[in-house]
């Protein structure tokens, strides 16, 4: 029943929130080690990891139900599909290290740029806020439905 109540959009949103929180750990690690010699800054490749998880989720759903996956109808061969979300076309995702070029720029072989990390941190929390907002609206919609059935 809860599968019906919380559809794949909610699960994707939850996954996104989870990954954003994880990424926060990576960025916090970079800030904490901004002055640790020989430290290599890390980051989570959100886009690729998310595409992977969503792809897996879709494949698992397809395996469990006989229902055809919900797809956009294509009435023209030139229409864009939603292939990007199946994960197969994107890289495996995961942790990204600083590029070789900016590794070891400082005297202490630490390539962490505090400004850059703080910027990423802000962006990450804004994206997180956006996901939370959408999640709140979805929950609000469910609540509306529940309240309307209670009244009638």
């Amino acid at each position: 029943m809860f599968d019906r109540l919380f559809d794949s959009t909610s699960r994707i949103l939850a996954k996104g929130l989870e990954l954003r929180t994880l990424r926060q750990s990576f960025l916090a690690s970079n800030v904490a080690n901004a002055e640790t010699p020989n430290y290599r800054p890390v980051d989570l490749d959100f886009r690729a990891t998310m595409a992977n998880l969503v792809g897996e989720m879709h494949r698992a759903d397809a395996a469990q139900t006989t229902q055809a996956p919900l797809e956009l109808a294509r009435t023209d061969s030139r229409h864009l599909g939603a292939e990007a979300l199946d994960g197969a076309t994107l890289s495996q995702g995961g942790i990204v290290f600083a590029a070789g070029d900016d590794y070891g720029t400082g005297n202490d072989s630490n390539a962490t740029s505090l400004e850059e990390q703080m910027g990423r941190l802000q962006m990450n929390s804004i994206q997180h806020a956006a996901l939370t907002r959408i999640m709140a609206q979805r929950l609000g919609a469910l609540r509306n439905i529940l309240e309307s059935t209670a009244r009638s």
Partner: protein
Amino acid sequence: MYDLFPIEIASSGLSAQRVRMGAIASNLANANSTRSADGAGPYRRRMVRLQAGTLPAFGQAFADALASGRAAEASSGLGGERSRWLAEGHVRGVQVLGIEQDSSERLVYEPQHPDADAKGYVHYPDVSVISEMTDMMMASRSYEANLAVIKNTRDMLNQMLELLKA
């Protein structure tokens, strides 16, 4: 509870920077101390060595988070690479490895000084006030950055908690 990892990591940064501040304060206060507490020569300049420390619990949390999105049958994909990330433990707090002492000295010719040696030179610690001041600024900037991470993460968690409100 990996939601709190960023706060844990940033706290390790805060305490490391505090230790650094302590060492800097000690160096500045003793820039002209010609005797150390144990009586062996002048004060020695303190240096804090920082080291990236692992958070062992994070690896498991990361695996769980990735695993919870998948069903058992769809276990292809990230396999080998994921175990490599976990083994390497990429997310790190910072820890103080130790406080080292710099034994270099600055000799000043002051024959009338009670701590002058036979040739009239006084051994002062090799503390450069300017470099200590810049170090202090770096430590306090770093402290602020870690504090900002904590505030940022706290805001994120608060937003999540807002979802529970009716």
